[in-house]
């Protein structure tokens, strides 16, 4: 059954917030771990970072599949056309990055000669053989894509807050877990 067309499914909300926590955690870990001196903690964080990255990739696939089956509610009718366009572009760019960033990290890891074993149990095949120069290039790609992700996340959060505080519509609220019950008083 599809929910009314002004609401997200609870699955979509769960995936959104799970992803939010995972993305921020993985990003922070990524920036923190690279500057650490060589140590067991560093190796541990690298492994965790890779495990989280693969999880992000899989969750992004699930999310996309879910989104195709249950399209998100439309933006308020009053939204200017350029904002429609910006919102669509930003969302699809975010999805693209949720796939491209783990992919670039995985390829970088392969090129640097370190295979990825998800949760230390499930080996992910190496698509590239060891090539340190290619590894450096992929590292630059990985970092650049992450800065792009940060920029888009700032825009995403900024737009959500603008909808809430300036436009005073339900665009932010409808992504919150309790929206179902407060809908009446807010609309």
């Amino acid at each position, binding site marked *: 059954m599809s929910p009314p067309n002004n609401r997200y499914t609870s699955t979509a909300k769960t995936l959104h917030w799970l992803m939010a926590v995972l993305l921020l955690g993985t990003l922070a870990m990524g920036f923190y771990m690279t500057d650490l001196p060589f140590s*067991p903690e560093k190796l541990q964080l690298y492994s965790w970072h890779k495990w989280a990255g693969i999880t992000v990739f899989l969750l992004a696939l699930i999310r996309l599949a879910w989104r195709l089956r249950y399209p998100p509610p439309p933006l308020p009718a009053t939204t200017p056309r350029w904002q429609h366009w910006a919102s669509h572009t930003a969302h699809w760019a975010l999805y693209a990055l949720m796939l491209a960033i783990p992919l670039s990290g995985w390829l970088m890891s392969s090129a640097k*000669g*370190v295979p990825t*074993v998800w949760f*230390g149990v499930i080996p992910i095949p190496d698509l590239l053989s060891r090539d*340190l120069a290619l590894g450096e290039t992929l590292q630059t790609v990985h970092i650049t894509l992450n800065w792009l992700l940060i920029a888009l996340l700032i825009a995403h959060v900024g737009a959500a807050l603008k909808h809430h505080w300036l436009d005073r519509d339900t665009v932010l609220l409808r992504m919150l877990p309790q929206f179902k019950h407060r809908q009446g008083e807010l609309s």
Partner: protein
Amino acid sequence: MKSIAGIIALSAALVTNAYALEYNQVQPEASEIRFSYTQMGVTMRGGFSRFTGELRFNPEQLEQAYVMIEVDLASIDTGIREADTEVTQPVWLHTEAFPTARFESSAVEALDEQNYTVSGHLTIKGTTQDISVPASFAAENGVGGFSGAFRINRADFAIGEGMWASFDMVANAVEVQFQITATGGD
């Protein structure tokens, strides 16, 4: 006629190689010493690019067989570039004080025509352990090849002390694989 003579000459050469030749010149550039270890569930491969060896091996005179391999530890490739310098540090291999790892045989035993057990002493970072290494031998046109693998525990040689001593991150077992090529000489 030519081809018959050729076959006779070749057979003679093979017989000579198989039964009389003593292999005593290690060819490091045609040889390989590699290793693998596990880091948080991930199997990593590495190797050494510089080593030298002494050899005396005639399958007919095993009681005189002798092999010594000395590995320049600073030539290590751990599979992770950042780790290559880290493992030269005192907590790992301490290459400044112990620049080489050395294996020296004490006895060679034949299991069958191709397979041997080489017993000897392995010295790494000032610690010597008795080990026995399985090695298979094959020769062709005067070039002999010895290959095999054996396992050591890094903790037995204090490789990875202090914060690295726990096996959670880097496992204790290290498998060493070798392929040593040797030719005969006088």
